[in-house]
């Protein structure tokens, strides 16, 4: 077994490290601490943040890829190494779903296939009927299994909560517990605990039942929809986060220098972003993705496996999305820099002979942080939704990659069927809705707290 580092995996982990370091760095400032305290005082923000954390957890689990090599002895006695497929940690958790591929559609919790097929029974009579699913166990009943799963879920979630209480209390455990429970704590820990209990119970229920059933049904080629929905989390979250972050340095650099230096620098940068933003976004993305496809077809040596190809395509898509989305942020940063650079403290710093670089780092960038942060969280939900539309248009992620857009796109073709094949659509929309709703609620809160105009 060895670890495979895909391009996007690398970016995700770099991002995690950078955010962790940055978090440590700024958490020393009491002002920043106070601000975040205010953000999480709202129970909606707390609950949304926990939901987002769970999505992030799945993204990270799905961002550790490895492949196993299987040894086999060939006919002439030599040991041949077969390269098995690259799998992620999430695949290992759902390995039973990977193997249990049915023949075709089946509804959630169904025991039989969705469409009739020809069956030949023992007496040799041919008739039309529903074939039973191969990987659905007939033992035990659903209610008992659900109850057991809920109990396990409650146990796990109470373990998490106890751990947190111990970490928080350092000694007088009971008083901290009561304070949290009666909602007298500074931060709404009770809401946090309830969210955790709900999510953990839901996830254990889904997971434990996925051994015996196809909880959300199967798709056209018999793949498990629950597994696909979980795999799609990584695609959605990556597009949401990496797109803004990959272009952030460019937007900050250009925005700040346009606002600070003025003159021809300002003109050139303004020209650049006006030009880019005057092209309709979807068309620019489509044009970029089409060119990228041609380029990738011309260079098959860039990638070895389909996984690497779809990963490279995701990376290009993120870059193209980034190119189209940095202009708005750049415009805002330019205006704000212009405003800040006229203020007395910058004039004073200039009068003391402080260099341009120091002025930017010490005085300007810290005052732009709230704009950057708000735009990162605001763009996130829009980008997650955009992925679905782009995949529908045909310029989204690779068709072999699991994504909500691809799930919707495939299921859309089956709308005319009667009864409807609704479960793929339903799962994709629900998974997407929860993520986007949580992101929207949290970003609303962050915006209200951090935006100085809302004082």
């Amino acid at each position, binding site marked *: 077994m060895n670890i495979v580092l895909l391009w996007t995996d690398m970016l995700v982990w770099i991002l995690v490290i950078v955010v962790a370091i940055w978090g440590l760095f700024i958490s020393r400032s009491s002002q920043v601490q106070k601000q975040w305290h205010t953000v999480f005082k709202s129970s909606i923000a707390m609950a949304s943040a926990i939901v987002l954390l769970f999505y992030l957890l799945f993204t990270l689990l799905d961002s550790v890829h490895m492949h196993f090599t299987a040894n086999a002895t060939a006919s002439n006695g030599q040991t041949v190494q077969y390269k098995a497929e690259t799998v992620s940690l999430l695949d290992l958790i759902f390995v039973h779903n990977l193997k249990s591929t049915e023949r075709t559609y089946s509804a959630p919790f169904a025991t039989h296939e969705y469409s009739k097929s020809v069956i030949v029974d023992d007496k040799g009579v041919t008739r039309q009927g529903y074939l039973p699913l191969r990987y659905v166990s007939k033992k035990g009943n659903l209610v008992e299994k659900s109850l057991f799963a809920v109990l396990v879920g409650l146990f796990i979630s109470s373990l998490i909560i106890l751990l947190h209480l111990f970490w928080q209390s350092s000694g007088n455990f009971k008083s901290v517990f009561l304070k949290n429970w009666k909602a007298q704590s500074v931060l709404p820990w009770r809401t946090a605990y309830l969210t955790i209990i709900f999510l953990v119970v839901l996830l254990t229920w889904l997971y434990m039942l996925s051994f015996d059933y196809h909880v959300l049904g199967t798709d056209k080629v018999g793949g498990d929809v629950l597994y696909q929905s979980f795999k799609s989390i990584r695609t959605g979250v990556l597009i949401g986060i990496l797109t803004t972050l990959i272009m952030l340095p460019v937007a900050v650099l250009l925005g700040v220098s346009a606002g600070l230096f003025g003159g021809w620098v300002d003109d050139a940068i303004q*020209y*650049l972003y*006006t*030009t*880019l933003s*005057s*092209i*309709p976004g*979807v*068309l*620019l993305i*489509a*044009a*970029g993705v*089409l*060119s*990228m*496809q*041609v*380029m990738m077809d*011309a260079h098959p040596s860039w990638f070895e496996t389909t996984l690497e190809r779809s990963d490279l395509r995701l990376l290009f898509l993120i870059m193209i999305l980034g190119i189209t989305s940095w202009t708005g942020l750049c415009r805002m940063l330019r205006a704000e820099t212009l405003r800040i650079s006229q203020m007395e403290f910058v004039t004073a710093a200039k009068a003391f002979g402080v260099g341009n670089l120091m002025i930017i780092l010490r005085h300007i960038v810290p005052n732009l942080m709230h704009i950057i942060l708000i735009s990162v969280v605001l763009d996130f*939900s829009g980008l997650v*939704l955009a992925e*679905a*539309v782009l995949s*529908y*248009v*045909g*310029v989204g992620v690779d068709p072999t990659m699991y994504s*909500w857009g691809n799930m*919707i796109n495939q299921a*859309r073709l089956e*709308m005319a069927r009667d009864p*409807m094949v609704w479960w793929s*659509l339903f799962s994709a*929309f629900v998974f*997407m*809705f929860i993520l*986007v*709703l949580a992101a*929207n*609620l949290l970003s*609303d809160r962050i915006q209200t707290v951090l935006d100085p105009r809302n004082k």
Partner: protein
Amino acid sequence: MFVYIIRRVLYAIPILIGVNLITFMLFFMVNSPDDMARAQLGAKQITPAMICSWKVEKGYDKPLFINHHAKGMAMVTDTLFVQESLKLFRFDFGFSDANRDIGSDIKERMWPSLAIALPTFLIALITNISLALLLVLFRGSVLDTGMMVIAVMIMSISGLFYIIAGQVIFSKIWHWVPISGYEEGWSSIKFIILPVMIGVFAGMGAGVRWYRSIFLEQINQDYVRTARAKGVSEIKVLFRHVFRNGMLPILTGVVVIIPSLFMGSLVMESFFGIPGLGSYTIDAINAQDFAIVKAMVFLGSVLYIVGLILTDISYTLFDPRVKL
């Protein structure tokens, strides 16, 4: 005023050249004239001579940016980039891969797009502004909070969901309207009513929130307090002062998209089988037809820039403080 408009139009030219440069680089760097010739000729045995003659015939035999064989100005002008750009500036879009005249296709497909986009735009504008005014009137009440929660919910659901759910409920189960299609003239109403309603609803969350925040910003201003102190009723304050002053920021956001309505909506049109520019673009993307995509990119940018100019002009008309 006239001079100002001329100046703005002249200012648009370098931007359009920039747009051309971007699309030109995107397409010609990866899709060289040789590839285009091969795709167009389509014959099994393609000789280099055939490619050469095709390139000469279509004018693709020139160098990309700088012609070293030419003298003086012709060094820059007698190149593929300048020739192609000049064609676009004359709105001569050339022919698609299927050998159809793109310009006449666009003229034909513009109207169905507009038939969807214009009613969506107008109805959305009116409903969103009225709802926002209503919420501002009852600000802080249960109605306000409840509607804001609903607005966030509406915003968080993918637009594709509204389309699919609408088609299933209104066309498949209730059979109120046909599921997709289009006809010329007034009989097209039964085809456009569902996409228009879905478009209005899908944009409602973000729209109402935006208008509401604009009106709320106005309602905290000093002149509103003065008006109230004079004894002006709350309704009058809302319509006389808040609404009229809120129109200025609304103009910035709204006028700029009016010309772009011609472009139609990619997703809506292809779901409902409307033969507009949106579905035209999607078909071109799926067929990898670079000529059409390039034409649409150029057209989209022109319309956007027209929108920007219109915004500035509308400002001078509606805001007495702006003088030219």
